[in-house]
């Protein structure tokens, strides 16, 4: 089976200057440093990690909004480039994005109905306005926006309603892939669940595949068929959500999972030591070793490979057979 989206060896490096004014030494910021993953049609991959680990850059790379430094992204067999040509425009119809900040992503001078209809206007310019309005009305109903909202402006809506507008706009062309970059982190906790349920319902109904990005493990777990944990531009662990959350193998994942409060049960919490990660100064060897509670001498020298084994994958020298470990 070929995947809908397949990412191989994806890297994105930015040249930067170290502090020190004009004469600072040039350095490389490795925002994304070698990613491999697949998303089959209709499935959801959750990408989780701390801020600054390269999640959002991954989203922009996957959609062809920034060009990769190395590696490739294939969508439905076709190469995704960041060249804004006709092929790129055609791909827009089938891959869309939901943004973190819905107010920022909407034009405050345009009624929301018109914004929801904009992808249709762009990609199906021949469609009569009446039919477009009909489709917009359907979309608004699908995301739970009343018809009375149609002529309102973004600032007249609540945060949750705005995100529904963004989702409706993203779904206007019935895309095969939806990239959601922290879609609920700007919303109130009480609204988050509603929006997540909406996304889940819509996915069940329309069957789009999704790349779901969040720093919040609980959110990713609810939404995803598979989960990948990112640290400093790389995937350190991947697997089915239940396995990753109940039996995390990588020390970093273990620390993340231990930080989730579990009602009614006290659990040992692993507190990470050391500096927060800086993608300009990636440590030699395993990038995680300065903060790893179980690092060995080997970890400081050799970069661990992401070993795949029966649906699990881990990049750690201390874990040799992921599946066997998980079974323990």
């Amino acid at each position, binding site marked *: 089976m070929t995947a809908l989206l397949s990412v191989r060896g994806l890297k994105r490096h930015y040249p930067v200057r170290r502090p020190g004014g004009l004469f600072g030494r040039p350095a490389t910021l490795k925002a994304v440093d070698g990613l491999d993953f697949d998303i089959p049609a209709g499935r959801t991959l959750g990408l989780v990690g701390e801020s600054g680990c390269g999640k959002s850059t991954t989203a922009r790379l996957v959609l062809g909004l920034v060009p990769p430094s190395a590696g490739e992204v294939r969508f439905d067999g076709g190469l995704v480039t960041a060249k804004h040509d006709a092929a790129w425009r055609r791909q827009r119809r089938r891959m869309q994005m939901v943004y973190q900040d819905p107010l920022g992503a*909407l034009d405050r001078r345009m009624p929301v109905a018109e914004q929801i209809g904009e992808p249709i206007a762009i990609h199906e310019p021949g469609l009569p306005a009446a039919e477009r309005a009909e489709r917009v009305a359907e979309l608004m109903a699908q995301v739970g926006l009343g018809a009375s909202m149609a002529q309102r402006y973004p600032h007249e809506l609540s945060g949750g309603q705005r995100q529904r507008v963004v989702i409706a706009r993203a779904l206007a062309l019935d895309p095969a892939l939806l990239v959601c970059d922290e879609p609920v982190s700007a919303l109130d906790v009480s609204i988050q669940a509603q929006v997540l349920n909406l996304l889940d319902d819509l996915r069940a109904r329309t069957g789009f595949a999704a790349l779901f990005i969040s720093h919040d493990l609980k959110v990713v777990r609810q939404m995803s068929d598979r989960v990948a944990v990112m640290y400093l531009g790389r995937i350190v662990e991947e697997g089915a959500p239940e396995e990753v959350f109940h039996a995390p193998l990588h020390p970093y994942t273990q620390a993340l999972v231990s930080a989730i409060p579990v009602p009614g049960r006290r659990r040992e919490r692993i507190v990470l030591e050391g500096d927060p990660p800086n993608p300009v100064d990636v440590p030699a060897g395993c990038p995680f070793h300065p903060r790893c509670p179980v690092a060995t001498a080997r970890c400081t020298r050799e970069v661990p490979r992401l070993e795949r084994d029966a649906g699990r994958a881990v990049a750690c020298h201390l874990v040799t057979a992921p599946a066997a470990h998980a079974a323990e």
Partner: protein
Amino acid sequence: MTTIPDDSGSVFTAKNRAAAFFQSWPPGILLALAWLAMCALLVAFAPHVAPYDYLAMDLRARLTPPVFFGGDWAHPLGTDELGRDVLSRLITSVRISLVIAFLSTLIAATLGVSLGFLAAWFRGRVEQVVLMLIDAQAAMPFMIIALAMLAFLGNSLPLLVILMGFYGWERIARIARGLAIAASEQGYATAVRDLGATPWRIYGRHILPNIASTLIVSMTLNFPEVILLESGLSFLGLGVQPPMTSLGNMVGYGRDYIQSAPWIMLAPAAAIVLTTLSISMIGDWLRDRFDPTLR
């Protein structure tokens, strides 16, 4: 202390209401708006309002002074050396000067916004070229460029309008570029670009409406300067050519009679000053009200 609200309170509220009204609509602005409204009416209905044809000569009534200065109501602002009615000529001149200034400002705005957007969209080398053009235009006094172009290309009304249209484009371009760059870094423009929208759609339907208020204010500030420029050129005899008339043109011809009939020159001069003053005041007021970010 308790106060019983009775009908004496209404006096206060009426007073407060008046104060609040004048707070948001200062009397100077109201006067300026009234003057401009009158000018707009003149522009629209000049031939119907003017008591005489602006070219009609009455050689028996040459150099009649205005009413209250020894003249009569037949010619409220007096007549010129050919017996033409100054008021009628003034009305026609206001019409021509304002139309020229309006068309030219429109050209300058279109040019400025287009080049500013081009620079913002392409960045890199295109932006450098636009910035260089802006600097070059700003380095030379426009009056001199206009005179040179008139010398080299000859004079006609369409050419004059287009030439004036090059006045002030560089300021509008600078503002448009800055605003467009700021806007395209905002989420809404990025989001529309991610949808696969063409630059036409991003700039025309999203960025332009978002920055329109600032652009309109800067156009308002450009307008009176174009009036001054056109009247300066016409005053020198190099702008609007007779038999057509404009405000500067009238001052220029009236200057020969400064000793015997100063009203020929003073009436259009006052019209120029009042009009530019009104538009500048309104421009400043709009800027303070809607766009404190501008300078």
